[in-house]
């Protein structure tokens, strides 16, 4: 038996150490060094890295913008009167925002303002799916269940899937980490991809839990009330194909449920912005210029009359029926 155990242990040790070193060396999601990330061509786990960075630098920002990557192109540094950081990450969900805000508050960080962008994906993605995704595993898991968190990032099968991108000779972007840590946005102004609606790939996710998603926003609202934080919620100006898909999947029910919890700015619906494909980088993401229009409306009350009549920038506060009748027409 000793011979057996000795052989198995040596074999297992050799075969496990190599993959382990491989995972640490490649680290495609940048979780091994969250305070010093590199642009390796793979989208990092922004949720984990941004949260770690903020907790290490609690006084650097006084406001935060949360949401999915759709909110990723907001140049929040342009919001006057605030020092706002774009906290968005891929597929960011209300339940994750709630956990992150709780963590910030419990670590003594009291934001002046929190902005949250929501849309169909806010209720149509099962948060549990993120637990096994290197790109999206939430920050809270690293704290509440560090074993599962690090097991994911030391799993060679997870790392292997991103290996092609890492070794494909990606040219690092200039100022990648500077932009990441100082602003948090993804796309610069003037970025265009030539996307057309014919290329759009808007599919229902097959999952829907409006009650949970809105319940999390309710809890965020309560935290904001408790700590005197200004909460601003808005709907993303998703493009026509995505919006039509959302409509078929209970989007109005979501808007109604959301309106019962908090006032919000609406930018969704069919309007001159969302029906113009040049405003979009791909199916899911609108440009930095569109993001500026949203910020102008929220912070400067500046919105084009024609757009306003189309429901773009409509402020919902006990008048959800009015919004729905506008965007339905």
């Amino acid at each position, binding site marked *: *038996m000793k011979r*057996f155990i000795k052989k198995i242990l040596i*074999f297992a040790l050799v075969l*496990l150490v190599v*993959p382990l070193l491989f995972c640490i060396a490649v680290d495609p999601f940048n979780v091994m060094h969250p305070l010093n990330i590199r642009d390796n061509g793979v989208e990092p786990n922004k949720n984990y890295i941004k949260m770690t960075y903020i907790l290490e630098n609690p006084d650097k920002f006084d406001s935060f913008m949360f949401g999915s990557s759709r909110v990723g192109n907001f140049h929040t540094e342009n919001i006057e009167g605030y020092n706002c950081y774009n906290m968005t990450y891929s597929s960011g969900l209300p339940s994750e925002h709630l956990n992150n805000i709780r963590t910030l508050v419990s670590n003594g960080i009291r934001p002046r303002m929190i902005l949250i962008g929501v849309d169909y994906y806010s209720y149509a993605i099962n948060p549990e799916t993120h637990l096994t995704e290197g790109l999206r595993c939430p920050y809270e898991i690293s704290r509440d269940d560090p074993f599962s968190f690090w097991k994911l990032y030391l799993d060679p*099968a997870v790392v292997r899937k991103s290996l092609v991108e890492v070794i494909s000779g990606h040219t690092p972007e200039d100022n990648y980490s500077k932009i990441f840590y100082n602003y948090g946005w993804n796309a610069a102004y003037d970025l265009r991809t030539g996307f057309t609606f014919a290329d759009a*790939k808007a599919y229902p996710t097959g999952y829907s839990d409006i009650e949970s998603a809105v319940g999390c926003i309710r809890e965020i609202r309560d935290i904001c009330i408790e700590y005197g934080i200004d909460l601003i919620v808005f709907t993303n100006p998703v493009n026509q194909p995505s919006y039509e898909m959302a409509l078929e999947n209970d989007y109005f029910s979501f808007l109604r449920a959301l309106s019962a919890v908090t006032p919000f700015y609406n930018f969704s619906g069919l309007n001159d912005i969302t029906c113009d494909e040049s405003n979009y980088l791909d199916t899911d993401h609108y440009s930095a210029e569109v993001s500026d229009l949203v910020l102008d409306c929220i912070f400067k009350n500046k919105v084009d009359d024609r757009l306003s009549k189309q429901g773009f920038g409509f402020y919902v506060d006990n008048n959800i029926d009015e919004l729905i009748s506008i965007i339905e027409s």
Partner: protein
Amino acid sequence: MLFNSLKYAIFLPVVFALYWIIPHKYRCWLLLIASYYFYMSWNIKYVLLIAFITAVAYFAGLGIEKKINGKIVVFISAFLSLSLLFVFKYFGLFFDTANNILSHFAISLHPVTLKLILPVGISFYTFQAIGYVIDVYRKEVPAEHNYILFATFISFFPQLVAGPIERTSNLLPQIRDEKDFDYDKAVYGVKLICVGLYKKIVIADNLAPYVDRIYNNISSYTGFSIVLATLLFTIQIYCDFSGYTDIARGSAKLLGIDLMENFKSPFFSTTIREYWSRWHISLSTWFKDYFYIPLGGNRKGKARHSINLFLTFLVSGLWHGANWTFVLWGSLHGLLRVFENVFKIKEAKKRFSVEWWVRCLVIFIAVSGFFPCFRANSLSDIWYAYSHMLDGVINPASYLHDGFANTTGIEMGTSALITCILVYLLPLTLYDFFSLKTDVLIWIGERKTAVRYLFYAVIVFIILFFHYVGEVSFIYFQF
């Protein structure tokens, strides 16, 4: 506690170490405690079920030995065990069916909702217990007097939740008899576990999302998508179940116990009869010994023989799940088996001949062609699958292209296809093919050290680098 979980990766070595450290007289206790802990890790309440079924079979065995009317004892014990199985597994199916039928006569039954979760493995250990009682009745084995030993036999954790459904004469003496650590057996066990993990977490789990994409929303798909998803499901379920069996057998071998083989390269069969002698062997032989032969087998004329064959497959289908889809699946196999019987179709005489290859392909297509009944969620889905499989076939290029694109989705490119063939299909086919001739694991063990260890390293690396991320339960746990 899944075999492919970290919990089991800790549990098994702990049980293994304790088992060989402690004296023989305590080993049975250890296995019993480990097995009950293993079972309770799913649902602590359902341990009462297995305890009840164990007690029923144990006292039935003693009753038969004491010359109490054997037939009645067998009947009562089978009735009690099957009643539990019925309540937990089949009540909903029969109630809903009765309600549907009666609703045509404007009668509606009072709604009854038991809200019971199907206990994992209930069909397996119930059948093992019934098999024991019948074996005692037939005087093939003596009644077991040691309750702890008997309870361990029923609940032995490697085969508790999805078989193989063991025979008393094979498993019980192995648990009872004192044995020394067998190095070769333990090494073979580790190899089997690796093969099982390869089949399960590399092949089956990676194929599952493609199959689920189609079958969980089948009305959105037509044509080759359904055909491809069905073929992938054939491979998925084989790797899922035979992978489970390999891990079960490997785990048992680490404890010095040999469980029966459950799969022997089933897709290299030239008749349905041969297929069922290679697929889920422990269930096939159970039904043969305890259902088909008592029905009369082939001893009561050709007509009865065919009826008995058909009934056996029909009930076997129902055993798999509380859904008429499984009954249909079993019936289709039964019809084909009856067809073979009536027309006296025998296995190909010469292995590896052209005829043999062609007939293997025909049986593979037939077996795969029946799997929509196994995988589809309802009878209407089955009908949809069969009636839309050939949509668009008149334009073969787009039929294949669209089907492939829809099944695999936008994320699967050429490299993933190459991975699928090189990592999933080719090794599996080669392993099963060479298993027809020899025990591949022993054959590899006889190679030179460097070759052998290189092979092991490649297998372990493939498991580590290509496994599905996340834990997916075994399909047969639901039965």
